[in-house]
């Protein structure tokens, strides 16, 4: 193997793949067969973090950055004058195995520019996964980016070897997609997703009857939306995400603040800042939908289609629903405790445990890990709470921003403990 050439390819094809944010390896549960290599843990492991603070858990590369399409937001677009490269199947396999053996990664995230046509490209991606599984006995995580328009047959094969499949929706609205990627259409993206979804459902059914059905995309599907390349609002974005969670059983929707990389009149200027705070707020909303029992309509409504950049969406909801507070910690049900600003899932569970032993005070609450500086305005302790007089205060929001800038003001990441 020519090391210098391989290094050069890796640099080009890692650079081109870096804007894809879905890097998580969670949800895999491929147990090692005796004597083989690899084992994916259900929760996923981040092996390192880039200097921009994003987690690295997979070797994320493109098979090639040659592309016949010309999507405006993409560095690999055909009209962009950049160095092009392509890995061989063997090279990707070799890198994956050797990185994995050194405990650098949990597996592979493989995506590709489209060369020739959708099926030729998809076929090559599948070949990498197949070789890893069948020839190298590899049980680590494999995420393949499906190519829009790929045939059902190839999608089925992909699902046999990959843990997760995804197709990036990229632009949240159809009109936006028309503008920026005129050669692509929504249907080509949705069809493979539909196919995989029904495959997963069928797999689960069959698994109930026959224990040994081959795995079918066991970690499910995900997608990614670029935020801020077109002028959709947050409500539209959340609705699209909600639609995917409900109708396609998606495991994750990723949001990627648009990084201006190309001069194009259809796009924000090169000097535009990456909308990181907005991206962060979208992830927070996403958490509310997935773990806190919030509905999309509760987070935003048509009168207020953008997320508040000053306060997180849960606090924002609380401030708009002061009539639901204060909440009594001894008697309220878990779902309502979860809605108290400053209390996360873990703390809520601890509260429900600990209150069986004794009546909780504000000091207990602090020790249980709540952000008391926020929570204290929304809780009615049995013994009373002096901070409750602020609950009707018009300046409550100001009071709260003053007391809780720490976490959100300077931390613009996506995959953290958010509340």
């Amino acid at each position: 193997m020519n090391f210098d050439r391989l290094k050069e390819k890796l640099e080009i094809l890692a650079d081109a793949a870096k804007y894809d944010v879905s890097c998580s390896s969670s949800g895999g549960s491929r147990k090692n067969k005796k004597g083989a290599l690899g084992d994916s843990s259900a929760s996923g492991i981040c092996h390192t973090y880039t200097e921009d603070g994003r987690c690295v858990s997979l070797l994320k590369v493109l098979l090639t950055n040659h592309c016949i399409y010309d999507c405006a937001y993409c560095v690999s677009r055909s009209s962009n004058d950049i160095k092009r490269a392509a890995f061989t199947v063997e090279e990707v396999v070799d890198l994956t195995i050797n990185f994995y053996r050194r405990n650098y990664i949990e597996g592979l995230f493989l995506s590709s520019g489209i060369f020739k046509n959708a099926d030729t490209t998809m076929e090559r991606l599948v070949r990498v996964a197949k070789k890893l599984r069948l020839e190298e006995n590899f049980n680590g995580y494999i995420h393949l980016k499906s190519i829009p328009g790929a045939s059902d047959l190839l999608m089925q094969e992909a699902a046999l070897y990959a843990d997760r499949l995804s197709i990036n929706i990229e632009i949240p609205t159809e009109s936006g997609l028309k503008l920026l990627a005129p050669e692509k259409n929504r249907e080509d993206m949705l069809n493979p997703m539909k196919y995989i979804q029904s495959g997963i459902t069928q797999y689960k059914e069959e698994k109930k009857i026959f224990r040994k059905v081959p795995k079918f995309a066991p970690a499910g599907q995900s997608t990614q939306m670029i935020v801020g390349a077109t002028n959709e609002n947050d409500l539209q974005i959340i609705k699209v995400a909600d639609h995917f969670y409900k109708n396609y059983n998606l495991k994750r929707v990723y949001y990627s603040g648009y990084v201006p990389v190309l001069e194009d009149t259809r796009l924000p200027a090169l000097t535009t800042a990456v909308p990181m705070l907005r991206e962060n707020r979208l992830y927070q909303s996403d958490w509310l939908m997935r773990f806190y029992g919030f509905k999309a309509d509760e987070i935003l409504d048509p009168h207020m289609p953008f997320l508040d950049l000053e306060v997180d969406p849960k606090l924002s909801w609380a401030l708009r629903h002061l009539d639901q507070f204060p909440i009594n910690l001894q008697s309220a049900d878990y779902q309502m405790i979860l809605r108290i600003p400053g209390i996360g899932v873990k703390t809520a569970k601890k509260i429900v445990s600990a209150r069986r032993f004794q009546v909780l005070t504000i000091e207990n609450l602090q020790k249980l890990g709540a952000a008391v500086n926020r929570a204290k305005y929304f809780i009615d302790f049995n013994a009373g709470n002096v901070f409750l007089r602020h609950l009707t205060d018009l300046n409550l929001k100001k009071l709260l921003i003053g007391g809780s800038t720490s976490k959100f003001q300077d931390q613009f990441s996506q995959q953290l403990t958010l509340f």
Partner: protein
Amino acid sequence: MTILLYDGSFDGLFTAIFEVFEYKFKDVEIISRERFHQENIFAEIHEVITQEAKSERVLNKLEENIGKSGIHELVKVFLSEEPDLEQIILSAVKQSIQYPKENILQNYADQDILRIAKICKSVSRERHRMTAFVRFEKMQDEVFFAKIDPDFNVLPLIRKHFKDRYQDQKWMIYDLRRNYGLLYDLKTCDFFYPEEKIDLNKYQQKFHDEEKNYQTLWQRYFFKTNIVERKNLKLHIQHVPKRYWKYLTEKNW
């Protein structure tokens, strides 16, 4: 006041706890022999001889009350090497004997129990970080070798993880601070305790021929996958605290 001296082992500690009940000691302190310096000249010294049978009786009783996961939490406290770990574990056992029907480890309003929860969290975090930050380097004899220096003694907690994961390569993980390691030789996966410190001089000369190449590839990958426009060093350091950097391949070039 009675001071119980034990050999520093997990079974030794639980033998000592058994004897606290057996002899109905009231005001006690359990200390490992290694860490014992006689300060309190009025204390009675009670020498504990580790007996698995006694330790097991305590652990079995405990398991009925707080479950396997509860025991696992106490193991984490033990591995935390906190100076007063014996005191906290004893306190938990006493409470559990007093309230056998409850899982007392959930009584977070109690000071000792809250400490246990906190310690478990730190130890678990370190354990998790070790599954992530271990970097194997392939040696000439085809063994994948990794050096670690964790804040807590987490090697026993990561054994299964690495054993499940790497079954078709020989590997070794070595704790530099505590001077012991784990070795998997394609058949068994056991702890080893070298007589002398492993000599790390000339270490890189024993690398397998391909090792440097893959390290370079990984470093270049790490560099290229970063998005400069989103740089956030503060967050980076929060995720990868500096004390780990010297063992991370991607941070050393």
